């Protein structure tokens, strides 16, 4: 799995973008999106996903069940 941003709730405040350790977040059409290929759920970097921790709107940066859980490389 990776995280995704629920576009309808995103305020486009940009707080998540610089916090992402994988540079997976960018602005598209006025809101921010997470590149699922780059997202590691911050595993191996921090205790909690940084985008969700800094986001001002609850339940906006959430786990995307459409993708398999990220595995930390051995």
């Amino acid at each position: 799995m990776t995280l995704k941003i629920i576009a309808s709730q995103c305020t486009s405040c940009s707080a998540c973008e610089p916090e992402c350790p994988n540079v997976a977040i960018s602005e598209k059409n006025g809101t921010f999106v997470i590149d699922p290929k780059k997202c590691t759920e911050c595993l191996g970097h921090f205790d909690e996903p940084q985008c969700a921790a800094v986001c001002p709107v609850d339940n906006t940066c959430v786990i995307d069940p459409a993708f398999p859980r990220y595995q930390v490389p051995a």
Partner: protein
Amino acid sequence: MDATTEHVGDAVGTNVETNIDMDDLMQKMAEHKGCGTSGSSGKASCGSGAGQNDLPTEIWEKVKNHPCYSEEAHHHYARMHVAVAPACNIQCNYCNRKYDCANESRPGVVSEKLTPEQAAKKVLAVASTIPQMTVLGIAGPGDPLANPEKTFKTFELISKTAPDIKLCLSTNGLTLPDHVDTIARYNVDHVTITINMVDPEVGAKIYPWIFWKHKRYTGYEAAKILTDRQLQGLEMLTERGILCKINSVMIPGINDQHLVEVNKAVKSRGAFLHNIMPLISAPEHGTVFGLNGQRGPSAQELKALQDSCEGEMNMMRHCRQCRADAVGLLGEDRSAEFTTDKIMAMDVNYDMEGRKAYQAMVEEERVAKVAAKQEELETLAGAQSDIKLLVAVATKGSGLINEHFGHAKEFQVYELSTAGAKFVGHRRVDLYCQGGFGDEDSLETVIRAINDCHAVFVAKVGGCPKADLAKAGIDPVDQYAHEFIEKSAITWFKDYLDKVKSGEIEHVARGDAAIRQGALISAA
């Protein structure tokens, strides 16, 4: 958008070493208490008076044309905010970042965010159109220091293209200690820190969380980190001679009594000015406080708290709690004239000499106003009376009674006593006159907003509202149209005292007034 503070006995950064010059400066500031509206009772309600008086020259130079740091300057000089800093690192219960409406006037709200390059262009466009615009602030809509690259890039661009413009910023203080040296390097000489508490127990009721060092903290722990960082940042700034204003949101039942402690804590760390603002918490704003029914203070409650802190340091009472993209004099908002589309199409020619000449003219006007007030004040000498009362004034700026009652979007409030006329606040009202038709409901709103005043000074007022005002016990005064506010108020007050003395009228105390929470609509 802004933060709070909390201070416990072992707060960070105690015993900061200061050099001798700063000690001396701080001593002078403490003696003077920063303000100099001579003739007023007690401390004045601003960062500086009309003249330099006994303010140290270096402080006077910093505040004399900064509308936020000098009450007197705010009648003459304008400011602008550029919304380059959308991200924030804390959550406040009085803020909702999702809400964004052009008719809404409160911090944290903007119509569009700008890149540093767009912001620099906007500053030039505004400075060329409004020559009395002297100050550029970055105040959000998030926290400027949670967006350090955008904030400092903007300052860098503007200091190159418009070096005569003063730079300032407003922060919650969480990351302030990390950026103090950069702030000093860009010659930002005014910093506002929002400090709502110095006790984490209180802070936990205001801040649900903070994001710090890659982690979200909540409750007491969050508030403790925040207050320690705020007070450390304040000390580091004052140590470097950077003027600090402290903003505090007055939240009845949560921090209203506690703000006296905050006042002492920030004063002892060298803050220049304290701005206690009423909580804005309408349910439609969707904030935690708006939704849980937390009320804001009444006009009397706010003034009582400001008065009680005034013995300690200068209090700012002219704050309009403006948006992070506001443009113009404090009581007005001209941001709609400077949208990104419009400024990008503008052909801007930055005329520094023209601005200088215009500002010299403004200075002459200021001097004339002060002289008129002084002259009138002398005629009050020897008058003996304990009477202290409030009057409301309709003004478009320049320190003149020059606004029609029905066109006023706000009234300025002055306290009159034998010590003179002292600015103590302002009241927002709906536009009463809507295209020539007086609206009775709006008139009631105006009366509620200035219900604690004995008189209202206007350039003009219609027959109907005049009668209704008189019926409500507020004397509508229009014989000083287009004259200086303070001089006229003192003349009127002398006359009032004479009438009380002769028994022609009886002096009766007025009731409380409401602080309006709704939208500030642009004048038609």
